């Protein structure tokens, strides 16, 4: 390992929790029959990654934090009645959902409708297997974890379709048709843009990417700003977060594919939506924000705490856009994916490939060239985004954003007429 990580191998060194789990597993191996360890290891990993981090984050950052922050954005208090500062609100919500009757329409396809929320939970848990919380804190350190992430996060699309179709409700069917069309469109620029990262770092492993960023002392956010933007937009589209939440567009199709769900069946969808958003944040924190490293600070502060804070910070972006932006229409979203993001991602990929070849062949992989590439890529990102927007921008007949003013009541005043007061 190339990192200068200082954690010792002592089980009590909480800077690396894998020491603790390793100690537990070693002890178990001695006393328990053979094979138990194989069962125990994923369970410990699950408890560590999912139960301790994801569930708590989901409840207190995803549910409470999101509602609090959106409350602040909307100049109101968030939940503040249950417990001090409302911290027990998520638990009250869960209790309420559990005691609520889960209605099923009589014409629904019961098997699919009941299994959809359950199947929806599974990928949300599976994603966390490859997220590196620390140098050794990965449940499954597989060499192709980036592809694994993409594969696992493509399953929910199918589940939302199952959910929407099974209810025999027109709103749900509409919602799931939209999800399917949109998710396929957004998968393409997402994969193409992430390919640029893979070309640059020459690895498919998330852990190796963190180590790459640590080696070159720069976050990929700076080397590949365009990819971060595309990733963020595509992730919001696949997660149905607000600028792109056409699948559950409340003002149009009531709740989209969740219309007939109630009680904890709905609660699973809601909770796991947050789980996926957290997973996307974790992925972004790993790939773009240096994962568990923080320029040497990880030697003193437990790296998993740094990582979790980064995840929450990125999750804030999701909350922020949700509280600010209106929703796009489906044809606009599709056009945005195919006409804007895909060409930009392709150009970016081309440039990164060129840089990579130059770097390997002409510059012998020298470290300072990464900084040169960073400058070039930031300039390229700005130029591409601005230039492309100018080139194929959404240009309706541009009328001013202030109305004309007239003094006297009268008939129709054509736009060309100069009688208006105008500003």
């Amino acid at each position, binding site marked *: 390992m190339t990192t200068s990580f200082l954690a010792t191998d002592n089980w009590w060194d909480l800077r690396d929790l894998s020491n603790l789990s390793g100690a537990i597993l070693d002890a178990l191996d001695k006393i328990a029959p053979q094979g138990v360890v*194989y069962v125990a290891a994923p369970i410990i990993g699950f408890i560590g990654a999912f139960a301790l981090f994801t569930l708590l984050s989901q409840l207190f950052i995803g549910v409470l934090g999101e509602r609090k922050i959106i409350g602040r954005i909307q100049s109101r208090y968030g939940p503040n009645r249950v417990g001090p500062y409302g911290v027990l609100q998520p638990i009250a919500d869960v209790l309420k959902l559990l005691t609520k009757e889960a209605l099923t329409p009589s014409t629904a396809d019961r098997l699919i409708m009941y299994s959809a929320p359950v199947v929806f939970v599974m990928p949300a848990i599976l994603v966390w297997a490859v997220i590196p919380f620390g140098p050794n804190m990965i449940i499954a350190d597989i060499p192709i974890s980036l*592809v694994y992430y993409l*594969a696992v996060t493509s399953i929910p699309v199918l589940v939302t379709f199952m959910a929407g179709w099974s209810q025999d409700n027109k709103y749900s069917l509409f919602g799931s048709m939209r999800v399917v069309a949109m998710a396929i469109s957004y998968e393409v620029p997402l994969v193409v843009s992430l390919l640029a990262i893979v070309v640059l770092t020459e690895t498919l492993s998330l852990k190796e990417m963190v180590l790459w960023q640590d080696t070159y002392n720069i976050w990929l956010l700076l080397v590949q700003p365009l990819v971060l933007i595309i990733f963020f937009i595509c992730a919001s589209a696949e997660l149905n977060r607000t600028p792109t939440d056409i699948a559950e567009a409340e003002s149009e199709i009531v709740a989209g594919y969740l219309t007939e769900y109630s009680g904890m069946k709905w609660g699973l969808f809601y909770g796991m939506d947050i789980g996926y958003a957290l997973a996307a944040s974790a992925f972004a924190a790993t790939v773009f924000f240096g994962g568990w490293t923080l320029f040497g600070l990880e030697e003193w502060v437990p790296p998993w705490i740094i990582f979790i804070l980064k995840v929450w910070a990125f999750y804030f972006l999701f909350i922020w856009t949700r509280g600010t932006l209106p929703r796009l229409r489906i044809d606009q979203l599709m056009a945005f994916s195919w006409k804007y993001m895909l060409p930009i991602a392709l150009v970016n990929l081309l440039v990164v490939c060129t840089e990579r070849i130059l770097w390997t062949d002409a510059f012998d992989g020298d470290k300072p060239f990464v900084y040169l590439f960073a400058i070039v890529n930031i300039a390229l990102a700005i130029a591409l985004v601005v230039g492309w927007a100018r080139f194929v921008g959404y240009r309706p007949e541009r009328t001013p954003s202030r109305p004309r003013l007239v003094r006297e009541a009268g008939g129709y005043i054509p736009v060309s007429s100069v009688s208006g007061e105008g500003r």
Partner: protein
Amino acid sequence: MEGFGVTVAFWILAAFTLVAAAGVMVARNLLHAVLFLVLTFLGIAGFFVLLSAEFLAMAQVIIYVGAIAVLILFAILLTPRSGRQNSETRFALPATLLAICLAAVFIFVIFDADWSEVEEDPSLAASELGEALVSTWVVPFEIASVLLTAALVGAIMLVRSPEEEAEDALA
């Protein structure tokens, strides 16, 4: 392949995949059949992992579960409700017989042949696959990309409605 884990995993996967594949045959509702098909794809991906082709397993999930299954579902939704049952034509019985005969022949051949096996895992990394694709197999690779483009264009041309064609002719 030795080992308790591998053996158990194989039998579980085999049962899972084949039952799901049989589900595609027997499901009465076309949408249920598609969901069984997805389970089959996932089982196959599990086999790929077992055969130490992790990259292809993930590609299988992305392409089959994430794209092809979704595409099939979309096509079903575009056709009417009446076309959503998964019934058989009058060829059902001959087809079944043919399939059973074929499977019997295959299995006989498989167990009769003397396979030369390597025991150690060749453990191929994803980068080796990439290198093979752009060195030895670069011509088929390019042809495949042309095929994909052709399929893309063809699919778009096929589903265009006459109104859209008229609009494009005007434009």
